[in-house]
């Protein structure tokens, strides 16, 4: 059973029509769960295959050492760090949409926030693998964490790498808890639509939720606080990631513009990835009543805004290099544009500054196929931006005698591709086991059933 358009009611303030009944929302979202199609199995098998290939590459690197990766003097931060920053960036849109847009009462977040939050959690899980890969001796991974002054270590809390450990682990924990809290009432709905073992599993997962006045009261209070805490985290995490670069005295990195520039880039890439995931998801699951052009239009506007900020930041970097009259800054920025990695630079400029421009036309913002294509460019562009920043500055540092170009080896390529498989593995699993749209919040947008009128 599904909601049909003849029961739909007109939305307010230019919003699309939506189902008029609470029950319809339950059934439309839940009907896609637990019934994987052949296409889903194919996609999942592909994800497992690429993930396994990435796993093999990592195994190969553990066996033979970091030498199998292309990172060497002078470029010690290769695509592992590129991937780390890329995936942390992807993780930004989810919490932006779920927390900041919740606090500003932006109604279009309702349809897209659950999938974006899932994307955030899985993206940060993906990002977290790369420092371990980059470490080489992964069995010493516990050295990341600050056990105060054990093992004769002097913990340096003035190091941005240390800040990053705190920022990423806090961000992951808070995002995962926020994701779970939002799921509690929706998992209770799944429980009440199922029987047998599924009912038991979801009954435990939703902690025995019943929607009593007491539960809703504290749930809503806690949810508001979670949103309030998650909102500054969105801005802080990528600022801290940017300081990994900006705090170093390296030409091309040592810049105060980095935090806002990185945060804007993260939101840009995250909203791009949300479109990449949700446009096919809504189409395949026939969720047109819940995720539609209204949401895509708003996501596209977010991308346009952040693309503008990025374009400004790129321009400003060049302006400051010229205006500061610092020969090292000038050299590195000139080399980025014309040197061995110029292709990465111009691909970045095209994908981040030019490709989103058609979205200024309303027709493009209301065309899911066009937006999907643009979102792929956004993903490529943001990966290239990180490649451009990480690799070029270290390959051409202050002393020309140390200059050497970096190119990733097949191990690094394998792990990069494997990361997409790992991410897709989790996201596909999510799409078939948890409500991909926040059912309870959709209900909040539907007028409650009343006998005598008066309620709203």
């Amino acid at each position, binding site marked *: *059973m599904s909601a049909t358009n003849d029961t739909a009611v007109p939305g307010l303030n230019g919003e699309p029509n939506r189902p008029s009944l*609470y*029950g319809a929302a*339950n059934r439309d979202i839940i009907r896609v769960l637990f019934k994987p199609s052949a296409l889903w199995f194919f996609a999942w098998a592909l994800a497992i295959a690429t993930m396994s290939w990435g796993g093999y590459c990592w195994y190969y690197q553990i066996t033979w050492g970091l030498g199998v990766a292309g990172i060497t003097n002078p470029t010690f931060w290769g695509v592992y760090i590129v991937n780390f920053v890329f995936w942390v960036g992807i993780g930004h849109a989810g919490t932006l949409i779920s927390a900041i847009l919740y606090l500003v009462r932006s109604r279009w977040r309702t349809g897209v926030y659950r999938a974006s939050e899932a994307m955030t959690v899985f993206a940060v899980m993906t990002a977290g693998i790369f420092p371990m890969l980059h470490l080489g001796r992964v069995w010493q991974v516990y050295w990341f964490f*600050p056990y*105060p*002054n054990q093992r004769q270590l*002097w*913990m*340096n*809390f*003035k190091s941005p790498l*240390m*800040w990053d450990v*705190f*920022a990423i682990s*806090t961000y992951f*924990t*808070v995002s995962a*808890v926020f994701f779970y*809290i939002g799921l509690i*009432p929706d998992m*209770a*709905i799944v429980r*009440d*639509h199922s*029987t047998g073992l599924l*009912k038991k599993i979801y009954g*435990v997962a939703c*902690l*025995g*939720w*019943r*929607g*009593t*006045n*007491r*539960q*809703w*009261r*504290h*749930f*809503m*209070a*806690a949810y508001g*606080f979670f949103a309030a*805490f998650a909102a*500054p985290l969105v801005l*802080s995490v990528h600022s*801290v990631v940017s300081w990994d670069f900006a705090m170093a005295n390296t030409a091309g990195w040592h810049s105060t513009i980095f935090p806002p520039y990185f945060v804007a880039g993260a939101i840009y890439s995250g909203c791009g990835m949300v479109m990449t995931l949700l446009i096919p998801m809504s189409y395949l699951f026939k969720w047109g009543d819940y995720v539609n052009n209204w949401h895509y239009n708003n996501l596209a506007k977010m991308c346009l805004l952040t693309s503008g900020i990025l374009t400004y930041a790129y321009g400003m970097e060049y302006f400051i290099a010229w205006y500061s009259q610092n020969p090292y800054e000038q050299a590195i920025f000139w080399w980025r544009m014309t040197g061995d990695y110029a292709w990465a630079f111009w691909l970045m400029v095209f994908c981040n500054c030019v490709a989103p421009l058609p979205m200024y036309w309303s027709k493009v913002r209301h065309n899911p196929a066009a937006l999907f294509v643009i979102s792929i460019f956004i993903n490529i562009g943001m990966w290239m931006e990180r490649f451009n920043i990480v690799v070029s500055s270290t390959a051409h540092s202050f002393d020309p005698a140390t200059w050497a170009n970096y190119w990733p080896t097949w191990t690094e390529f394998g792990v990069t591709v494997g990361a997409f498989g790992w991410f897709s593995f989790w996201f596909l699993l999510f799409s078939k086991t948890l409500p991909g749209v926040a059912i*309870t919040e959709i*209900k*909040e947008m539907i007028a*409650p*059933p009343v*006998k*005598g*009128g*008066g*309620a709203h």
Partner: protein
Amino acid sequence: MSDTIPVKAVYAHLDSMLAGLDRLKKAGISGWSTTAPLPRHEIEEAVYEGRPSPVRWWTLVGAITGICTGLLLESLSMSDWPMINPGGKPVVALPPFAIVMFEPTVLGGAMFTLIGMFVHAGLPSFFLDKAIADPRFTDDKFGIVFPRAPVSDKDKIIEILKGSGAIEVTSGADTHYEVPNA
């Protein structure tokens, strides 16, 4: 035979349920619990009359605990090796420490909020009264449930609930309804 009995009313309309709630309060009857498929501010106002949830105190305590933990972790571990003087710069320096103080503030605030929510909302709650475990309440129905109403008040309660427009009022073993939603 016990002297309490479960009573459950199922409502199809929000305003009928609020009317039932109002009549129960006016009749001085307590021991009820409402249930709804979504948070509605009308219910919260009717039940709690604007009193804020105490979860906010947990949040405050968590955030303060977090910021103190961050500062102590940084300053104590940095001061533990005082022979290192980093170029004349202070060993305990607040500007760079602010970042690692900020993160535990958020983490502490969020985790304490989570615990506070669990404590006050009574979660997890796996041993529920059967009366309240009705799958219709997460679908599209509202409810007023008495897990343990005094037997002496039973008739009065049922009368009020029926009179306010409940589509179903049951008591005793009849409150048990477990048919999953289609």
